[in-house]
């Protein structure tokens, strides 16, 4: 979730009504944002990703003013007609097919406001724009641009201009290789044969989206009064929303919005379009979902508190709202305006029968016996690494379910057995009292035929560790467990490199292998820096459950 640092004075001015600190805190939280902190200068707040329209001082102030009923209801934004024309050439189709544009005039900018606008642009990039992949936003000083503007794509070799924060003209390739912004976002143009450009009627390059603006015509300064705004990307609907969010925020800073005419081949389009969309609301549906008994007037008022208009069962959705997919989204805003703390919390009168998972119940019975045998339960992560699973156990590496991406070192594979985890625990507990007799019940993972290509099993692993730990003791544990379950088992001698030869066995029930058991080989103990004998067993609980409770 993006965190924005908003200028508190500016927000308070834009609300147009003084709120106490407590009120401000409460209202910001009840709007459905996560307030971090309010200082004298700043409001630091996390904005949920469904509300990109709140990512600016203007946007937050607008919603707060509506919520406190200072400026109730739909805020209408006007657009002025104009001759500003943008021509979208076919060459962009293969790299970044769409753009939508607007001009905003009469801005009264200063250092703080430029900061606000840049923050809005950056946060929109990160969230709604998915790090510029989905939407890239450009804002330019209008006075340096001659219309019509062309949106076109050229081979990188033909592109050369002075990007922001650079002293001279450099080529497109140099921008991607050397410029800090180019290096950060260059991957978005990877494999592209042509790069998109905005070029004005003087043949000046405005920018190379989604990377960077030009220093000469693409830098907004304090004296800038009028700006040209464009959003480029792959989905017209998304781009239009994004443009609306920006121009509405600029309009709240006294801006006057001018339409632009876009030409896509022989199709023309006018942007921005700030007319509210309409959606029907069924008041009975809202009441049923919320468990309330709201009248039409209540619903109207609550919607208006959230910035909507309401007329004849129809809701007018402001053009900057990007999150209204379904009537249920309106219901949620009604609930937010109503106040989550005002709902009477009740348990419904519906009868259902509880049922514990049968396997879980079975597992608990096994654990009862193990506790009675004085074993201590441990809990490990499922994530581990191949060195622990195989090398340290004197085994050859086997096919293992492994992670494609792990941030934590030493945790890049899913465990295929549990005994290595137990030895790791014992090696970390050498300072503690012996005997150390431990067990764990947990998952193991193998490749196999299933929906995911991974077979998961629950296993029980037990390790006994003290000066006299031997095969007899671990077999006694196995024996008492199976005799409690009233099961007869067989043990067959096996060779297993992790165990001492002649002291390792495979346990089976009715011919089905179910466990292995043995004394851990001293060279394995050495690998784990253990100087106390260990004997261990690992039992397939999933299969054991299947044997006891056949489907």
């Amino acid at each position: 979730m993006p965190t924005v640092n908003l200028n508190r004075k500016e927000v308070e001015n834009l609300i147009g009504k003084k709120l106490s600190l407590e009120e401000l805190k409460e209202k910001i939280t009840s709007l459905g944002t996560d307030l971090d902190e309010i200082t004298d200068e700043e409001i630091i707040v996390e904005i949920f990703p469904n509300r990109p329209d709140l990512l600016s001082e203007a946007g937050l102030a607008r919603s707060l003013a509506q919520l406190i009923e200072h400026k109730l209801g739909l805020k209408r934004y006007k657009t002025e007609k104009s001759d500003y024309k943008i021509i979208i050439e076919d060459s962009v189709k293969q790299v970044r097919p769409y753009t939508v544009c607007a001009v905003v005039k009469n801005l009264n900018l200063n250092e703080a406001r430029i900061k606000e606008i840049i923050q809005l642009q950056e946060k929109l990039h990160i969230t709604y724009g998915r790090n510029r992949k989905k939407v890239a936003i450009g804002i330019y000083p209008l006075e340096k641009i001659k219309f019509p503007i062309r949106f076109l794509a050229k081979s990188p070799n033909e592109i050369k201009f002075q990007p922001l924060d650079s002293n001279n003209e450099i080529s497109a390739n140099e921008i991607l290789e050397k410029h800090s912004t180019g290096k950060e976002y260059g991957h978005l143009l990877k494999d592209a044969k042509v790069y998109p450009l905005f070029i004005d009627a003087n043949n000046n390059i405005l920018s190379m989206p989604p990377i960077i603006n030009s220093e000469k015509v693409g830098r907004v300064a304090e004296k800038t009064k009028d700006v040209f705004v464009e959003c480029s990307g792959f989905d017209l609907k998304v781009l239009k929303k994004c443009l609306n969010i920006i121009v509405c925020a600029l309009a709240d800073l006294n801006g006057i919005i001018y339409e632009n005419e876009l030409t896509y081949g022989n199709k023309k389009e006018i942007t921005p379009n700030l007319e509210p969309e309409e959606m029907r609301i069924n008041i009975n549906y809202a009441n049923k979902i919320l468990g309330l008994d709201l009248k039409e007037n209540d619903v109207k008022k609550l919607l208006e508190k959230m910035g909507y208009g309401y007329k004849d069962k129809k809701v007018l959705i402001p053009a900057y709202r990007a999150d209204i997919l379904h009537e249920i989204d309106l219901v949620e805003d009604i609930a937010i305006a109503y106040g989550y703390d005002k709902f009477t919390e009740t348990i419904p009168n519906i009868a259902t029968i509880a049922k514990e998972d049968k396997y879980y119940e079975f597992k608990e019975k096994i654990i009862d016996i193990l506790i009675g045998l004085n074993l201590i339960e441990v809990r490990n992560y499922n994530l581990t690494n191949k060195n622990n699973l195989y090398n340290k156990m004197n085994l050859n590496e086997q096919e293992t379910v492994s992670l494609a991406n792990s941030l934590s070192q030493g945790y890049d594979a899913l465990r295929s057995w549990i005994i290595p985890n137990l030895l790791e625990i014992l090696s970390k507990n050498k300072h503690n009292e012996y005997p150390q007799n431990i067990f764990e019940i947990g998952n193991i993972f193998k490749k196999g035929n299933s929906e995911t290509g991974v077979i998961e099993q629950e296993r029980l692993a037990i390790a006994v560790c003290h000066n006299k730990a031997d095969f007899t003791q671990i077999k006694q544990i196995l024996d008492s467990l199976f005799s409690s379950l009233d099961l007869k088992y067989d043990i067959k001698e096996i060779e297993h490199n992790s165990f001492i030869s002649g002291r390792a066995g495979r346990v089976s029930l009715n011919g089905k292998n179910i466990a292995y058991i043995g004394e851990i080989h001293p060279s394995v103990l050495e690998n784990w820096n253990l100087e106390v004998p260990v004997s261990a067993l690992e039992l397939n609980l999933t299969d054991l459950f299947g044997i006891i409770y056949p489907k």
Partner: protein
Amino acid sequence: MAYVKKVNIKGQDYWYLFHTIRQSNKFLKKSRYLGKELPKNLEEIKQEFLNELHAPKEKSEKEKLIESLTPSERKVFPILKEENELSKIAEISRLQQIEVLRALGWLEAKNLIKINKEEKEIINLDKNGLIYLKKGFPEKQFLKLLPNNLENLRKHLNQDEINVSIGKLKRLNAINFKKEITVTDEGNKLLREKSKEELFLKKLPLELLKLNKEDKLIYNELGSRKEIIKTDVKKTIYAGLTDLGKELINHKLKTNLIESLNQEMLLKKSWKNKTFRRFNIQSEIPRIYPGRRHFVNEAINYIRKIWLELGFKEMTGNLVQTSFWNFDALFVPQDHPAREMQDTFFINGKGKLPNSEIVKRVKAVHENGWTTGSSGWNYKWSEEEAKKLVLRTHTTVLSARTIAALRKEELPAKFFSVGKIFRNEAIDWAHLFELHQIEGIIIDESVNFKNLLGYLREYYNKLGIDKVKFRPSYYPYTEMSVDCIAYIPERNKWIELGGAGMFRPEVVKPLLGINVPVLAFGQGLERGILEYYKITDIRELYKNDLKQLREMRLWMK
């Protein structure tokens, strides 16, 4: 039975209580004066009177003390009348010094004695000293060999001894150097008498502090010579009787106390008419440890019980899931940040999608909202993206699968699970990559948002958390979306414990076929139990330190 009787003394009536008791083979009549009038609370007094008479006779403190002496204490204590030094006591008692020491420790703990330790420096014979005591000092041997020449003398004495002898004998004018070395008159005198040094060696061992002036000089001189004497520190332990000890020292100590009861005694009834030695029941004992559940599992089982009590069925499922179930079925768009590499563990390989009808619906709901009335996310949904494998990022995946398998006739229905989830995080004091989530859904045409908050409140109350607030939140698959925050008094802070909401129609309808209200919650486990276990670093939950696991307090909420 106690009875009341009026006694007439000098014309006055007085009321008395009487009762007869049997002591060994005698009968005794006990009485208590009540007053001139019968008291109102007569029954109470009667009871009290009987209780007093029948109460076992309290033994005196001294008697108890004597009976509590261990066998070795009983051996050692009487010796202290005559002797107070450890080695001597050991000699007399025929116990090992270590046993005596232990017994003295116990006696001291019972305030019968006070142990004093003394350190003495004792002068003893060293290697050469032992030899010289037998053979005489080298200077004496030297004198005996005279007259003689140096060459010959070297056959009998080493160079050091010759040097010392010559130096010393010259100083005493005991020898003459000419062609050969001869003895003077002084020397002859020395030969006849025992030297001071010889006499000193004979007296050893001596205590350094008690040497007289003359001996001190000899001690210093011999000390500078090679390995004749050595000084050892000797620790001596004395036991002094305390006042209480002096009082009890002449008491006769019982010798036939029973130390431990055993089968033989019971069979032979030999315990009868004997006294058991009194134990100090307050003394420290070596601790033992039981087999134990892992404490996190104790908390998990408690939470499972809460949901079972509320009528929920338990859900379980795999940890490895396709993105389809983990994300797509929950209406999480395919370009959502949660589906990127930095948040989620992906597993190499691809999985299979479920029956094509559900896939078709989910695809449609993402692209255009299908028949749910939603606009959908407006993008081209990819099957390949949905086949990617992940370690489940939430147990909400179990809810999705449960709803998909549910038939309309089975409603109303409630399900819960407590299971592991995974987040691709670097591990630190506040973050783990494996955590638990408490998941639940309630599905019925009649349920609403108020009920969701009702269940959450009930759950937190049962967990012992009474200050809980709900505030708006956002999840792609719920609308309303709720965050539950709880006040933790120990930290004087509100912390976030989990999310909840009502599943969007875009989630429910493709899976169930119809749109029915579904209340859903996914609460974190770990953050909510740290306070109880007094843990501040979340990694401590799974560090598997056996001391911690053995000693951790039980989950008692």
